């Protein structure tokens, strides 16, 4: 009898694992494919000389602009890695590429709408924050984080980009323009077949790591991480740290995480913000995807910066919010 019970428990764990794993993989996969296709099209059709001219000369302006690029060129976090890699190869400065990669999965029309929807209706005003304020806080904090990390990475890149990334960067020279003119004359079949090759290379490359990440996330979900640590949510400091760790481990899609956060009623504002801002920027599956583009040194820098900046921002927002409330009382 006892053995049957334990066997049943083990089996239900397998159910949990298989369902989580398959749903994460097949949910993210089409977005990776679209990202890979865009990456292939960019590689083949975006003329490098023109692209170089489009980047603002002012470094800070360029980084801020890249952080907001998601508004016109939205990408979700799964699709963004191949696109970012391609833009990097096309000569987008590393700081700008990092800012775009970090911010676009949050600051884009789809995620703004889903965050608004998640915190409206019966879930709004739980922390005294309306859904509009929640969207503003999420996007604002993401922008600040992306901008700071982008600027710091940009500084690092001055010393030598090749210590940081695995992507060869093309040097824009005069001949490039001629070469592009020559490229433009190629027949369309050849261009499409080049797009196909680049896209499929990226697809295989990124999917492999997506699957490993999904496996880890499904494994942790099976262990019911969130309900095991719920006692940590009572204090705003531990809540922020715990929720950030959960965001990394759960690997939720940036369109869905707002719904999950909105339903965690006991978590204070600092925890929700930490979860909502860090989740789309960094999680296990993204970590594995990063290894395809960045070298260890850069990954470590980005991860540490993200944790420090987002933790500081969430905590200060929490205390400012509390202070303002006391003032108004």
């Amino acid at each position, binding site marked *: 009898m006892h053995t049957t019970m334990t066997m049943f428990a083990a089996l239900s764990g397998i159910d949990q694992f298989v369902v989580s794993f398959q749903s994460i993989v097949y949910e993210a996969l089409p977005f990776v494919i679209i990202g890979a296709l865009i990456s292939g099209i960019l590689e083949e059709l975006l003329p490098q000389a023109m692209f170089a001219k489009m980047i603002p000369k002012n470094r800070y302006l360029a980084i801020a602009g890249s952080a907001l690029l998601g508004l016109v060129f939205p990408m979700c976090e799964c699709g963004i890695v191949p696109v970012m890699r391609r833009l990097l*190869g096309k000569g987008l400065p590393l700081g700008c590429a990092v800012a775009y990669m970090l911010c676009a999965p949050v600051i884009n029309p789809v995620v703004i709408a889903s965050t608004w929807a998640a915190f409206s209706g019966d879930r709004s005003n739980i922390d005294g924050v309306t859904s509009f304020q929640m969207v503003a806080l999420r996007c604002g904090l993401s922008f600040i984080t992306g901008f700071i990390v982008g600027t710091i990475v940009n500084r690092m890149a001055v010393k030598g980009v090749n210590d940081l990334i695995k992507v060869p960067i093309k040097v824009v020279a005069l001949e490039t323009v001629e070469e592009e003119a020559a490229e433009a004359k190629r027949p369309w079949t050849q261009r499409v077949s*080049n797009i196909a*090759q680049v896209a*499929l290379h990226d697809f295989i490359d990124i999917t492999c790591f997506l699957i490993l990440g999904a496996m880890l996330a499904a494994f942790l*979900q099976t262990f019911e991480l969130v309900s095991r640590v719920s006692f940590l949510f009572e204090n705003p400091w531990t809540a922020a740290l715990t929720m950030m760790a959960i965001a990394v481990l759960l690997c939720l899609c940036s369109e869905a*995480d707002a719904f999950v956060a909105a339903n965690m009623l006991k978590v204070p504002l600092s925890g929700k913000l930490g979860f909502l801002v860090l989740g789309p920027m960094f999680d296990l599956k993204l970590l594995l995807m990063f290894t395809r583009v960045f070298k260890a040194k850069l990954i470590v820098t980005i991860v540490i910066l993200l944790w420090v900046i987002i933790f500081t921002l969430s905590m200060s927002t929490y205390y400012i919010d509390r202070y303002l409330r006391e003032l108004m009382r």
Partner: protein
Amino acid sequence: MQRNSQFMERLFTLIMTGAYGVVMVWMFISNYLGWSSGERSLLSLVTTWIQYVIFIGGIILIVLFFFLLFNFKSAGGGHHHSHEHDHDHDHDHANCGHDHSHEHDHYHKGEADHHHDHKEGETHDCCDHDHDHNWNPIRYIPLLIPLILIVMGLPDTKMIENFEKHLYEKSVKEQKRPATNEQMAWMSLGAFTFPGEVFPSVSFSTSIASGLLGMIDEMDGEARNEKPIMIDLSQIEKALKDPALQRQYASYGRVEIEGMFDLEEMGPYSLFRIVRLRMACCLTDARPAMLVCVTKKPIPAQLQSKGGGSTTRWVKVQGRLKFVEANDGKSQAIMKVSLIEPAKVPPFPYLN
């Protein structure tokens, strides 16, 4: 040797692309033609709009597959052996030998670094695959796992049901707090305020049930004999914030709600919940929506046990809705049920 491993690389890319394309399109088509073997199709793991994205993704893969297939011979022909440092490079020029020399010049600047990559790449193997050109089959093993699971028909209906059940039972357990004696006494007298935390998953006792039912009887009487109006649980969640909607729903003589049956207490007055999962993107982020129901009618025999997944416990109930104010000032919905009928699980059983 090198040519051979590149050939393998291309071949496997081609196979994987084709396989994923076919699987994704098949998932979509079989769902809409009702070909899936179990009660629940695999596509129901993700929400409706992403189902279409899966279809589009599958089509993209199949189209790319054919482009790669038609160019397979020329691409594998091996006239790009001089570019072994850089993968982007050989993709660009796999089919176009004519601008080789151009491109190569631009890369010379970074040449030293490529060599550096090369050495490092070999120490941590699969991550730097592009740089060493030995074909690395290990990389394709993770890619096979979701495909193998799909071919095995996993997750099947039973697995998905267990997952759902686990999800909402956990959420009931997390929210459940026994009502205090005082609260119970008040409610058994038919008091109009309820402790906020007892909804939607209080551990009810029969005395509370009779209290609730008495109160509802007093206010509304039985469901009227008219054509039922369909409402789903997400509409009720929305109404909790909107007094105008509450009045509208409460004015209906008979409403019908579908969902999974979850029995709490059986007796002269029975208490149960109707549960549905709400999903934003995929089943991993699903969260339950529940409605507390009271009834004097007997519970159908097949629903009396607590076991079983949604397929055996899917019901439609008809009755009258009531909105009451809990003592934390929030509205709560409750339904007095006059008809419980087993129903068929819809192909996509989740709410948005």
